[in-house]
């Protein structure tokens, strides 16, 4: 079990590094799909079958198709031109800040004393248990989500109109 986890984690990290350091956005997008699949595999190991399926359908399917569609629409053929200042102070500062933030988060997490969790519950994370909770305790957030999606649709339509006033 841990061997599978380490394999998937290595795949996720390597593809993540490749997403960040590709010159062409199309290649980044394709590596991001690999990253999403690896993370979905880890969700399966963590008993989140429904979320793993949703991850592949929504992230690797819908969102990445949207990305690829826009990349093709903008017709970005040539790779990114090299900058005049490849190692500017901003970039170095951004890199250091990210690494420092990661260390802070890791340190904070390592200080937490976690009680050992309860014993395994059969059927945790399957569609039935998620649906039961979604339509009882989380009904209001679920409905608010639909409003959020409506706003996103209206926003996308307005932004892609021919003339922006």
């Amino acid at each position: 079990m841990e061997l599978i986890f380490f394999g998937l984690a290595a795949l996720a990290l390597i593809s993540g590094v490749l997403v960040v350091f590709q010159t062409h956005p199309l290649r980044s997008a394709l590596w991001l799909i690999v990253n999403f699949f690896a993370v979905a595999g880890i969700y399966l190991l963590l008993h989140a079958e429904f979320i793993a399926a949703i991850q592949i359908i929504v992230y690797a399917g819908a969102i990445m198709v949207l990305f690829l569609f826009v990349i093709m629409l903008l017709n970005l053929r040539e790779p990114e031109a090299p900058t005049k200042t490849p190692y500017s102070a901003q970039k170095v500062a951004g890199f250091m800040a990210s690494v420092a933030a990661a260390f802070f988060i890791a340190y904070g997490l390592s200080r937490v004393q976690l009680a050992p969790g309860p014993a395994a519950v059969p059927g945790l994370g399957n569609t039935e248990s998620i649906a039961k909770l979604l339509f009882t305790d989380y009904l209001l957030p679920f409905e608010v989500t639909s409003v959020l999606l409506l706003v996103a649709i209206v926003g996308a339509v307005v932004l892609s109109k021919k003339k922006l006033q």
Partner: protein
Amino acid sequence: MVVPLPYVLGLSVALFALGAIGVLIRRNILIILMCLEMMLNAVNLAFIAFADHFKAVDGQMFVFFVLTVAAAEVAVGLALVVAIFRQRATVYVDDLNILKW
């Protein structure tokens, strides 16, 4: 049949930092958006790990909502990218300095 919680959290932190690096150092706005997706995904991984540790489905509910927000964000964000490209013919953030003082 259990993956230790610290391993998953470590992977989550690493992916989050990787996404943050991408957001801060890349110039291409499309790659910045993709790295943002990766950061959201890392947070989802932490939620799932804790949901598995405490045997509660509530963490997976939050992943569901984060996913919805991510989808809405990408739809609006990419519409903005296309609108900016139509106006300025660029996808590089250092060319978009009209608000810079």
